[in-house]
């Protein structure tokens, strides 16, 4: 369930982003608190509007935020569901309080509560709902995306290695919300073929 223990490229990119954000935030917090503390030492008064307001108030945040925005947009672009050669498409349909999954490569397979994907390949999840709003989230693989009535949203996920990954609905949906969970099972190449061929996973 942990965002900081990524198991796929999207989650890893965001985890790195988080550590960068954290380091920056700690540094800025330290700077502000240091300046605040120094205001209370006995001293001659220092600095005019120019230093404080133009320098620290305008130039400094504009520079920091400009680079941050650029970083964020680049990362965001990288995570989008673009065309890819070995792309797999699956569909996730939420309802109160269960998930069913279907597969473009195996049209008559529907699984309840377990999403099967191949490991090491990009997977697009088409997310929708039949009742209220839900959200599809597998923290160790990627960020979340909502299931909105009447809309189909597309999320790119990928697992580096075969295994099981916990998934949850992360948009509040009423009394059964906490237990509105699912599992993502990533298969190696054989396992995936077997699954598509109808074998019991």
């Amino acid at each position, binding site marked *: 369930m942990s965002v900081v223990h990524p198991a796929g490229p999207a989650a890893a990119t965001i985890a790195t982003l988080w550590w960068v954000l954290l380091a920056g935030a700690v540094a800025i917090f330290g700077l502000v608190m240091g300046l605040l503390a120094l205001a209370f030492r006995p001293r001659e008064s220092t600095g005019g509007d120019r230093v404080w307001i133009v320098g620290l108030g305008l130039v400094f945040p504009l520079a920091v935020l400009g680079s941050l*925005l*650029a970083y964020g*947009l680049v990362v*965001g*672009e990288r995570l*989008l*569901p*673009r065309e890819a050669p070995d792309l797999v498409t699956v569909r996730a349909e939420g309802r109160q309080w269960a998930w069913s999954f279907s597969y473009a490569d195996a049209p008559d397979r529907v699984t309840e509560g377990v999403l099967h994907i191949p490991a090491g390949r990009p997977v697009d999840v088409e997310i929708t709902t039949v009742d209220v709003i839900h959200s599809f989230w597998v923290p160790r693989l990627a960020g979340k995306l909502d299931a909105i009535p009447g809309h189909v949203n597309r999320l790119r996920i990928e697992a580096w290695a075969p295994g099981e990954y916990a998934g949850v609905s992360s948009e509040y949906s009423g009394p059964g919300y906490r237990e509105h969970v699912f599992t993502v099972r990533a298969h190696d190449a054989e396992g995936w073929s077997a699954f598509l061929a109808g074998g019991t996973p």
Partner: protein
Amino acid sequence: MNDILRLSLPLTVWLAAFSALYGLHGVLCSPRWDEAALGLAAGRGVLGLAGLLAVAAQVALLLALRSGRFASPSGFVRATSVGLSVVALVATLWTLIPVAATSTCL
């Protein structure tokens, strides 16, 4: 009242332009634009044009607020309104970054 207008106009124009741009983008990525069959490249062009228009409006406002004819008689309001006009211009440019930097409808 005129002074209140001088202070609030530039940023309000930013807000209007910003919302309009977002709305326009919404239209571009909606089924309605597909129906019009103009293509996404044209859509991006429209966005760029709208952005240019917004910048031009801000520059015009900035010049007006500094000019003899529209500037406030009060020194304080003049300085503050020109300052806010610069803020609005910067905000317009800043919030236009995505038009150049991101993919249109993914």
